[in-house]
């Protein structure tokens, strides 16, 4: 029975991906045809060689994703350390509410960011988009880093201080090597969430920033299924690559940090 559930679960997840794959390589695959017949890669060639917006969108999304991964991981690490190493009224409040951006409707959250960036003269810019994305990803990166920090004893940090280490040396020589799996995972989460964002990029970028998901949307909206599916396949490949790389790297680093969860 458990196997049946597993199969049903996998099929339900993979079903849409299989359809995207079929649409990306077969022309005019429509109901009531059972199997696709017209295999083609012409659309792929055109998309990859002659469509400049494809590369522009890809470049923008990767750049925003990397920036967001770095920013939200940095803030996540620092927040997590404060949450595990200090205890006062302010910290207790942050502990309760740092996940709140996940529960506020996206529209409210991003309009708030837009109003703020407009006041700072940063509206419709890269900075506004990265800020918006970071707002969504920081709760995730903080949660990931928090669980790792809880495994690193405070005594170990204090031992390093008494041996002469500065805060910077503590981070470089002790904390970062131990936190490597957490950094990789939170970086991957930061990138993947940012890479998939459509609405926030559209709203905060004001049309100046064209992300990969923004390139994809018009194709699907106009019924150009084959080009939409091609972009969908690229989307899935990039996401899976990032996920697998982060997973493999963090597992290799996890050996070092395995003591944390013993």
């Amino acid at each position, binding site marked *: 029975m458990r196997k049946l559930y597993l199969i049903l679960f996998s099929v339900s997840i993979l079903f849409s991906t299989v359809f995207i794959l079929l649409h990306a390589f077969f022309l005019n695959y429509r109901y009531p045809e059972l199997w696709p017949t017209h295999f083609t890669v012409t659309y792929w060639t055109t998309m990859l060689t002659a469509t400049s917006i494809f590369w522009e969108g890809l470049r923008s999304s990767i750049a925003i994703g990397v920036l967001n991964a770095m920013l939200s991981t940095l803030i996540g690490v620092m927040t997590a350390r404060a949450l595990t190493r200090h205890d006062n009224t302010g910290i207790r409040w942050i502990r309760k509410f740092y996940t709140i951006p996940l529960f506020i409707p996206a529209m409210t959250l991003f309009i708030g960011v837009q109003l703020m960036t407009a006041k700072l003269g940063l509206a419709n810019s890269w900075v506004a988009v990265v800020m918006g994305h970071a707002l969504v990803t920081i709760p995730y990166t903080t949660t990931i880093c928090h669980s790792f920090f809880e495994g690193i*004893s405070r*005594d*170990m940090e*204090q*031992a*390093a*201080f*008494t*041996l*002469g*280490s*500065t805060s910077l*040396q503590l981070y470089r*020589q*002790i904390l970062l*090597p*131990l936190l490597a799996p957490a950094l990789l995972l939170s970086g991957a989460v930061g990138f993947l969430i940012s890479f998939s964002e459509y609405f926030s990029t559209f709203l905060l970028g004001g049309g100046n920033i064209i992300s990969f998901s923004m390139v994809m949307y018009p194709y699907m909206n106009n019924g150009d299924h084959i080009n939409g599916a091609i972009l969908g396949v690229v989307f899935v490949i990039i996401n899976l690559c990032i996920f697998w790389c982060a997973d493999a790297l963090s597992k290799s680093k996890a050996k*070092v*940090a*395995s*003591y*944390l969860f*013993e």
Partner: protein
Amino acid sequence: MKLELIDISFRYEENEILKNINLEASEGKLVSILGPSGAGKTTLLKIIAGLLQPTSGDILMDGRSILNKRAGDRNMAYIFQAPTLFPHLTVRENISFGPRIKKWDGKAIDKKTNFLAERFRIENLMERLPRELSGGQQQRAAIARGLAIEPALLLMDEPFSNLDPNLRADMGMLIAEIQKDLNQTILFVTHDRDESLSLSDDLVILLEGEVKQSDSPDTIYYKPANEVVAGFLGEYNIIEGRAKENVFYSFLGNYPSSGIREGRAELFLRPHEISILESGNDYCITEIKKAGRTNHYKLSDGEHEVLAEAFAQFEYRIGQRVGAKVNREKDFHYINGKK
């Protein structure tokens, strides 16, 4: 090197953790701070190390205040209760961590690391990661790491509490040996009275955030400042009597009492200072308490009670009639009645 704490107090929120602590540690001495859990021992050690700031008071090292120095500049090493080796570094890298941070010459680092590895008998473990070591080996490596920076003061916070009794004894001997050989000043925090009595040159009794007595272990054990200190170090007898013309008269016999006021006085004796005499019949054994290889026997003559100690192998029984004799011949300690 001489460490002096002057009126150190520490308050956390509404709680006064330490109250006007005054303490001294001279070069080459092992000073134990003994107290129950929650007495403020670790807080005191962390204040000395620079990991916490006191609410008031000063810390002097060779007469100079070190209160404004950060932990790494105080030339002290801190050994925690659990071995805090860096898990991603080998034992060698752990031991050489401090000297590397302090930018010692490479040869000097190697020399120091190898010397300490040999002293702590961990030469064959140097390339291993901490998780590949036993608890005792990890703690030995942690102490070696602390000593690698040649600290003026080694602060040890119940370093053997996670080890089994045999290993504790071995580690205690190793520390005593290292202390003598390196002339290392050590401040040793413990709640184990036997450990503190056997290891220390000087002993400080810390109870409820206050130093209740500070002296040599023997003095504190046999001449406690008050009954609280006396009770903390184990069971004891207060023999009531009267002092007159330098003699103390009591139901247990008469003893020299020069230097105390005439009149009512109380003689302090530990149970092992009173022997049981099989030949006598003045007392009846009313209670037997196990105390390791020895037993404590409560003796009663109907009016007074006294606690004596004897090896368990003698197998005295409750209800048996026996005699009692004080072993001490001089230097008696009277709790009340001092001039």
